[in-house]
């Protein structure tokens, strides 16, 4: 196996919201993260953890407040003008809402062609050909191009959103909850489509979802976020065999499973997510952690490598033996 090449490197990436007057919420707090060429990294966490903001900031749909973003080794954090437009064509996004993210007044072909014409300055006849091929590839068929978004179901609209993101032939795609609004039977179709496209086009993807089952079927590695920080990074199989962070453990154990047996002991988290504007001192998870001791309340743990390819932000990771040290 050849050494993985970093495609996206985030260093101390920070996104703050609010500010003067209101309280400042640090949605993304000094995130260090590397996404390697050709991989799909699943970013999971509950609402308000900052996963969507991190995804948007990675491709500068939301501008970061601090830190750096490197794409293929080059700093793109403050890139402007034509240079940024070219880079942006390489970095695309698929959004969750297949209803709100497509302009209802335009034809599907126009919607899909737009990033191609704008970012790549592709001549129209060539754009036309690319759009036709893409509509075929996402399973809509090129004849869909003359119709408008409202004529399509949720799953079909998500296929339009995917075609649009792929039009400028990006190397990197952030998919933010792309199947969350879809019915189960349609969700499976779209997951399979994304898996095919990733393979055929050699895409690198940041796949954001609250649904661990969905992530397990598409991601190579998993990153877990809690209150704006990454608290665990592991390979897909390692994570699902047993998360090393107590939060990851509780999250996985909370997923209702389709098993005949009454399930194993569930680790039920008490209370709600703390206010992100005033995160707890020490380890931010200590208020809900069943293993927390005094040290967790005062000293913030760093994201530390505990095994090859596995990083955890916990003083007492659930490794190598189950349970805290």
């Amino acid at each position: 196996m050849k050494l993985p090449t970093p495609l996206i490197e985030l260093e101390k990436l920070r996104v703050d919201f609010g500010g003067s007057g209101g309280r400042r919420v640090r949605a993304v707090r000094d995130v260090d993260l590397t996404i390697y060429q050709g991989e799909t990294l699943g970013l999971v966490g509950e609402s308000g953890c900052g996963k969507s903001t991190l995804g948007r900031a990675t491709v500068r749909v939301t501008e970061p407040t601090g830190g750096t973003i490197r794409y293929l080794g080059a700093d793109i954090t403050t890139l402007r003008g034509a240079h940024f437009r070219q880079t942006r064509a390489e970095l695309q996004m698929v959004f969750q809402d297949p209803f709100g993210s497509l302009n209802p007044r335009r034809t599907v072909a126009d919607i899909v062609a737009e990033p191609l014409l704008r970012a790549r300055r592709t001549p129209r006849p060539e754009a036309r050909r690319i759009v036709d091929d893409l509509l075929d590839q996402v399973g809509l068929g090129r004849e869909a191009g003359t119709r408008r978004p409202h004529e399509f179901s949720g799953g079909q609209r998500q296929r339009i959103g995917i075609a649009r993101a792929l039009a400028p032939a990006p190397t990197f795609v952030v998919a933010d909850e792309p199947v969350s609004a879809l019915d189960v039977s349609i969700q499976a179709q779209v997951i399979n489509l994304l898996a095919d496209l990733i393979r055929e086009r050699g895409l690198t993807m940041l796949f954001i979802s609250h649904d661990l089952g969905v992530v397990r079927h598409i991601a190579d590695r998993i990153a877990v976020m809690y209150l704006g920080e990454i608290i665990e990074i592991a390979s897909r199989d390692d994570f699902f065999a047993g998360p090393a962070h107590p939060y990851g453990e509780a999250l996985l154990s909370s997923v209702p499973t389709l098993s005949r047996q009454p399930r194993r002991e569930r680790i039920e988290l008490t209370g709600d997510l703390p206010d992100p504007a005033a995160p707890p001192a020490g380890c931010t998870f200590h208020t809900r952690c069943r293993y927390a001791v005094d040290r967790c309340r005062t000293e913030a743990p760093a994201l530390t490598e505990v095994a090859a390819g596995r990083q955890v932000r916990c003083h007492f990771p659930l490794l190598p033996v189950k349970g805290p040290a």
Partner: protein
Amino acid sequence: MSGETLLEIRGLTVGFDVPAGRLPAVAGVDLSLRRGEILALVGESGSGKSALSMSLVGLNRGPGAHIGGEVLFHGRDLVTAGERELRGVRGKDIAVVFQDSLAALNPTQRIGDQVAEMIRAHRKVTRGQAGRRAEELLGEVGIAGPAQAARAYPHQLSGGMRQRVMIAIGLANDPAVLIADEPTTALDVTIQAQVLRLLTKLQSEHGTAIVLITHDLGVVAEVADRVAVMYAGRIIEQGTRDEVLFDPQHPYTMGLLSSVPRVDGPAVARLPAIAGNPLTGVARPAGCAFAPRCPFAHDACRAEMPPLRRRYGGTAHVDRCVLDDAARTRARGALEVLAP
């Protein structure tokens, strides 16, 4: 769970007038709910599961809505009952908890007052008594610091807290039946686990019968006693939790089960998806409504809608599929439905 029948639904139909004609949201449903059971109503968007549950308590009456059939509750037919009579049942004997708690709660009224109001609507108690009972209820549904929460406004609470408030309002008069429409869909899994535990606690401690409307088969496996699967306005399979989830008989149920991305079991490379889209328009095919999407459909399926009856499943396990036992076994194999 073989308690007496509380609610008996017979031949229920719900049609809505839309520009294209009449949408058959519920196309003839027979269903009974027994005391103390959790009955899961499963289906995708447009399957009619919400329209069905809303018509149980007359919540979707109005111009353009056509409701037929019977919903029998303690000898009364709630389909033909007057609005005044329904108001006496709704919130008292049969309570409804909606998915969207932010839209269902009054944003300008304190939480405690909203719970107390529901108590006072059906019982002759003083304002003070109702207020104290409201705080008790908020505590019972697992809200920490119920006295404080009672003074809060809906927007000051998290989604999980609001959903508990909705359940507290539902429980205000100790109803015999609780209809919970996607009660955990908007919640994170850790909060969902808390709400599901609350529902099972209600069932075991108060004997409340719960109609749980959901699209999440994991949730069904977790809490349901019986399951009815809906497709295009009809129940296509019904049985106990174990029968429907672990010995599915209808290809649609099989397809749903195998297309769920799971966190356990083998991580398959491709999910066996159901092709095509659910029916959304007013037109319905002549035969089985699922036939256009069914990989196992043949001529008999397109002739007429098969009746819901016991074929190859357990004693109370019924389905609407004409396939014979051998074809069903092949279908389960082709769809990689996990063996029980």
